[in-house]
C-alpha cells in the first residue's frame, strides 16, 4: 500500500509542477460556471419549476456536474494509449507493482488535485458568489461515498478503453464513443429528469448513471427517501465490483497479447 501512496504523492506533485496550468484551470472553471448561470437563468425566466426542478436545483446539478466531471474523468485512456504506443508501458512491467493499481493511483492523484483546484472554488462560487441554496440531508452524508464509487466506475470505463490499446494502435474512435456514452447517458450533460420516462427507467440500471447521476442527485436532492438513496448506492457498489472484475480479466488477456506479440 505504501508504494501506491508514494506514487499518489508523486502524481499530485507532478500536477502542481505546471504552475500556469494550475491557475488557468481555476479561472477557466469559474468562468464556465458563470456561463452556466446565465444560460439556465434565461431558460427559467418567468418559471419557477421545470420538470419538477427549481432553478437552484438545476443550476446546482449542472454546475456540480461539470466539476464532478473534471473530478471523475481520469484521462487514463489517453495516457495508456500513448504509453502503449510509445512502448513506455515496459517501465511498469519491470517494477514490482500492479499495473491497474498504478493507473488507479495516477487517476486518484489527479482527481484529488482537481478537488482542490476545481471543486472547492466552484462550491464557494455557487454558495457565496451566486447565492444558491445548498440543501442538506441524508444524501449530503452519503455523497462522498457515492463520489468514490463513481470514481472507481469511471476509472474502469477509461481503463478498459486504455487496455484496448494493446490490441489496436489507435483507440481514438473508441475513446470518443465511450466519452459520448458516459456524458449523455450518465446525466452529466442534461439531468436524467429531462429524459423520457421509459428511457430513464432503463438508464437507472446502467453503469453510466452510477457515475454522475447518483452522486449529483444525493447532493442536489438529499431529502429523497432513504431507501431510494441506498438502492442507488447499492447499484453503484454492484457496478464497481463487476467492472473491476471485468477489467482484471481484460488486463490478464491484454497482457498476454503483449507477452506473445511483443511491445
Amino acid at each position, binding site marked *: 500500500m505504501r*508504494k501506491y*501512496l508514494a*506514487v499518489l504523492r508523486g502524481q499530485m506533485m507532478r500536477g502542481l509542477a505546471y504552475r500556469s496550468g494550475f491557475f488557468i484551470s481555476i479561472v477557466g472553471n469559474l468562468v464556465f460556471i458563470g456561463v452556466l448561470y446565465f444560460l439556465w437563468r434565461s431558460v427559467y425566466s418567468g418559471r419557477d419549476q421545470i420538470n419538477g426542478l427549481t432553478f437552484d436545483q438545476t443550476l446546482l446539478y449542472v454546475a456540480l456536474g461539470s466539476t464532478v466531471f473534471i473530478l471523475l474523468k481520469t484521462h487514463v485512456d489517453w495516457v495508456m494509449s500513448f504509453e502503449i504506443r510509445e512502448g513506455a508501458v515496459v517501465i511498469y512491467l*519491470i517494477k*514490482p507493482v500492479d499495473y491497474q493499481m498504478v493507473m488507479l493511483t495516477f487517476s486518484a492523484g489527479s482527481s484529488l488535485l482537481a478537488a482542490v483546484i476545481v471543486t472547492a472554488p466552484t462550491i464557494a462560487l455557487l454558495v457565496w458568489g451566486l447565492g444558491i441554496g445548498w440543501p442538506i440531508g441524508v444524501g449530503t452524508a452519503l455523497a462522498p461515498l457515492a463520489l468514490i464509487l463513481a470514481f472507481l466506475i469511471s476509472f474502469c470505463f477509461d481503463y478498459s478503453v486504455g487496455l484496448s490499446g494493446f490490441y489496436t494502435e489507435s483507440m481514438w474512435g473508441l475513446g470518443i464513443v465511450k466519452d459520448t456514452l458516459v456524458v449523455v447517458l450518465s446525466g452529466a450533460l442534461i439531468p436524467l429528469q429531462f429524459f423520457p420516462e421509459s428511457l430513464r427507467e432503463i438508464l437507472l440500471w446502467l453503469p453510466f448513471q452510477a457515475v454522475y447521476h447518483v452522486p449529483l442527485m444525493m447532493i442536489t436532492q438529499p431529502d429523497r427517501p432513504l431507501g431510494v438513496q441506498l438502492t442507488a448506492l447499492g447499484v453503484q457498489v454492484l457496478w464497481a465490483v463487476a467492472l473491476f472484475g471485468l477489467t482484471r480479466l481484460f488486463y490478464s488477456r491484454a497482457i498476454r497479447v503483449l507477452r506473445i506479440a511483443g511491445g
Partner: protein
Amino acid sequence: MALIHTEDLSKHFKILNRRQGLAGSVRDLFSRDYRTVRAVDGVSFDIEPGEIVGYIGPNGAGKSTTIKMMTGILKPTSGTILVNGQVPYENRIRQARTMGVVFGQRSQLWWELPVIESFRILKEIYGVDQQSFDKQMAMFDSLVGIGELYSQQVRTLSLGQRMLCDITAAFLHNPSVVFLDEPTIGLDVSIKAKIRSLIEELNRAHNTTIILTTHDLGDVEALSRRLIIIDKGTILYDGSTEKVSDLVGSYRTLKVQLSQQDGGNLNDGVRDRFGEDDGVSVQPEEDGWTAITIDQGRVPLSDVLNHVMTTSQVADVRIEEISMESVVKRIYDGALR
C-alpha cells in the same frame, strides 16, 4: 548455480505482410497474410553471479528481445529461461524485486519532479528501508557526486546526468541482476567514461550481475571479460572479450572525402599500392566519401594515409573504429575460428 540460465530459448513474432499504396493499405485491413520473424532463435547461455556480460550485436539482432524475456516482459515461444532459479514471466512482481533495468532511450524517472523524488518513490515501490536507502544514496553520491542533482527537475538534466541518475536508480533496491540496455547511447566520450566507471563500481559494491547491451564495443572492452555476440537471433560468439578486442583493435576505418570526384582513381590507386593481401579494402560511400578499412597488424595506417594524401586532393579525413556490422561480418567469415 547460474544466476541466469537459458536453453534453446526462442521468440518468434508473427508480423503482418503490409502491401504498398493506399489500395494495399485498405486490403491490409482484412489480410491474414503473416510471416514469422525469428527474433531470438535457439539461444543458450549461463551467467554466473557477479559477472558483467556484454551482450552485443547489430540493430535487430535480438538483444532487446532477449532482455525482455529475461525481465519477464515477453514470454518465450519455446525453450527454457530461469533467472534466480525462477521463470521470469510467471511471477513477475516477485521477480521484479530482484532485478534492475535501464533502458537507455527511456527514463524511469519522473520527468516533472526533482530527481530525489523519483528515488523516494522507488524506495517505497521496492520497499527499501530508510537505513539501506541512506546507505545506497551516500554510495551513489560518493561515486559520481549526484547529490548536487537531487533538487533538479529531471527534464532539466543533460542526457548524461539523466543516465547517471537512471543507472543509480536501477541499483537502489540492491538487485541481484541489472540489465543495462544501451546505457551510453548518444553520450560523449567523457561522460561515457564516467558511466563505465560507475557501472564497474556498482558491480563491485554488491557483486551485482550485470548484463550490458550496447552498440559500442568500447563499453564492453572497458567493463566485461565475457562477451556474447548475437546476430539474426542466434549466438555467434560467446567467450572472452579479449579475443574480440584483439581482432577489432587492429582494424581501423579511414574515411576520406576528396575535393573533386575522383573516387574511382583513389580506389584503383590504393588497390594497386596495397591490394587485398595487405588487408586493405576500399568502399566508396555517399557524398564523395570513401571508406578504407585497414588491418594495422599488416599495414600501418600512416602508410595508407600518406599514400592517399600524396596522390589525391583530400578535403576531409576521419578515422573510425570498426563498426559492429563489420565485426559481425568478420566473425561470420571465420575470424575467430
